[in-house]
């Protein structure tokens, strides 16, 4: 029983990376209608930048995280303005293909720039240590991750529900033409949403550097999981993405412990089943 609870807590903290990535994927899909294959690569880029700033240059951890978020947000703005904008009127397959091309490009670019194998930088001093939960030491850093994930959730709720910008975004998402007629600059809304989503992916990536090795393949692994989560939660549904992240994070934590052989198979089977039975997602209202 204690193993069960403890393993669930471990899953909860890894669910937070999934949440940060799928939150970005979800708001971009919800507003722009673009399913961004390259979102995992933005996570990877955030991890590499965070690693470089914190692990190599020696910038304080908090600043390194913010810095990598800012840079990746700018990359996102460039992608949205320069590459995606010409494709909005076309079949969505072309957006998928374009962002898929970006995956190949960015993953290889990371190999070119950073190359080689990396060691994991130490956890910053103020986040070291552990607390005893269910008779086992639980890293303090994991609690920090959960706190960040929850704050991002609350922050996004506040942003979309309580601010003028959030109202403009929701108006644009539900009827672009009408929003434009009311004087909302929809191209700016699109760019800012894409930047926010990219920054969230980078936040997840940068926060992962002290505990997970950074490698070019982490983007491709992450995007597949984020796809599963957004499908389970319902494409474009932020609450669903949160619930889906917890579900997948905790389930795969149990899966690796008790049935490692078929963990991957079952997760994809769940995704396929949701798409078939409830394409609007498990958590749709």
């Amino acid at each position: 029983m204690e193993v069960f609870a403890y393993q669930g807590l471990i899953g909860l903290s890894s669910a937070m990376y999934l949440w940060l990535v799928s939150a970005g994927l979800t708001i971009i899909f919800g507003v722009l209608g673009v399913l961004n294959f390259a979102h995992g690569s933005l996570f990877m880029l955030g991890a590499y930048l965070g690693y470089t700033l914190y692990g190599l240059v020696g910038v304080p951890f908090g600043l390194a995280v913010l810095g990598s978020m800012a840079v990746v947000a700018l990359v996102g703005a460039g992608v949205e303005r320069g590459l995606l904008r010409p494709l909005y009127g076309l079949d969505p397959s072309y957006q998928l293909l374009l962002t898929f091309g970006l995956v190949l490009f960015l993953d290889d670019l990371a190999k070119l720039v950073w190359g080689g194998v990396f060691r994991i930088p130490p956890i910053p001093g103020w986040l070291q240590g552990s607390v005893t939960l269910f008779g086992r030491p639980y890293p303090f850093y994991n609690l920090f991750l959960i706190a960040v994930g929850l704050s991002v959730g609350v922050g996004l709720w506040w942003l979309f529900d309580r601010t003028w910008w959030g109202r403009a975004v929701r108006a644009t998402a539900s009827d672009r033409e009408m929003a434009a007629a009311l004087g909302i600059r929809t191209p700016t809304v699109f760019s800012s949403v894409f930047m926010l989503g990219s920054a969230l992916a980078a936040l997840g990536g940068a926060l992962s550097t002290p505990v997970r090795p950074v490698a070019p393949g982490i983007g491709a692994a992450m995007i597949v999981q984020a796809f599963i989560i957004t499908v389970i939660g319902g494409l474009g549904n932020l609450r669903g993405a949160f619930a889906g992240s917890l579900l997948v994070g905790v389930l795969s934590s149990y899966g690796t412990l008790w049935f490692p052989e078929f963990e991957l198979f079952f997760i994809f089977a769940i995704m396929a089943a949701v798409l078939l039975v409830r394409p609007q997602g498990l958590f749709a209202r």
Partner: protein
Amino acid sequence: MNDLARRWAAAGLLLALVLLPAVASRYVTYLVIHILLLALNAVGFNLLFGQTGLLSFGQAGFYAVGAYTCARILLAWPSLLPGVLGGTAAAAVAALLLGSLSVRHTRIYFAMLTLAFGMMIFSLAWKWRAVTGGDDGLVGIPRAPLELFGLVVALPTVERYYYVVLVAAVLAVALMHRVVHSPLGLALRAVRDSEVRAEHVGLNVRRLRLVAFTVAGAYAGLAGSLLPPLENTVTPPIAHWTASAEPVLATLLGGIRHFAGPLVGAFVLVVAKDVIVRFTVHWSLVLGAVVVALVLGFRGGLAGALEALTLRGSRVRPVSAAAGEEAR
């Protein structure tokens, strides 16, 4: 290109392919086998994407079903034909089963569903050690002799095996040409252009999509089952979703609106990769940039660009929509 010129081009290409092993090195022959395999996969994929309008990210799964089935058969019964036919049939059955579920959706949901199914096949290949050999894959697969009507042809060299692949590819591509230009092909294009209109003229949209999906899966399976006798091994990465991109990219590169597009694309993709990796290991970087450029600037692919060029020379310039239509 008019009809006569196209026939001459096809005949010339075929002659060149037949003569190839006599003039080219073994490595070039080996490379052309890979071009033919990718071409088979891409031609099948384009029936789904270019003709029917469905973007699948799971073709690697069916390729792997073909490859693993053929490998298991050849390990138990070293005879080429049962292996290749068995692999193709297994992939077609898998595509029929998974397709009957996938074609309930279109566009992004369809793409996601095929991705999930493809990855389920990948995880089986990777973890189901008893059947697939797990991450080691299957090794020591013989290039079994071709036994046909009591005639036994041994295939000790790459050059001999090349002719087996060539015959299979030519037959399959010719068959696909017939399908595309048949009433079935017309019906598939009607589904692609307007689902509602197709339904109103009495077409069974879901069944047509399923037919296209199954045929595409069978072509991927045929390409996959021709692989193990060449390489003597099969390993899980051939089933991964990133491998599904290969037929997609070949088709896009060549041009989705032309029958020859996937063939041209497969040729350019394999040759370009072979040349580029001599200079740099960063092949994906180049490929990614090319994909982005293609989607932004040349959605007609190489075949489309070539056509635009030849049309510019002639007096008559049909409107762009008709240009795509006429070339099919």
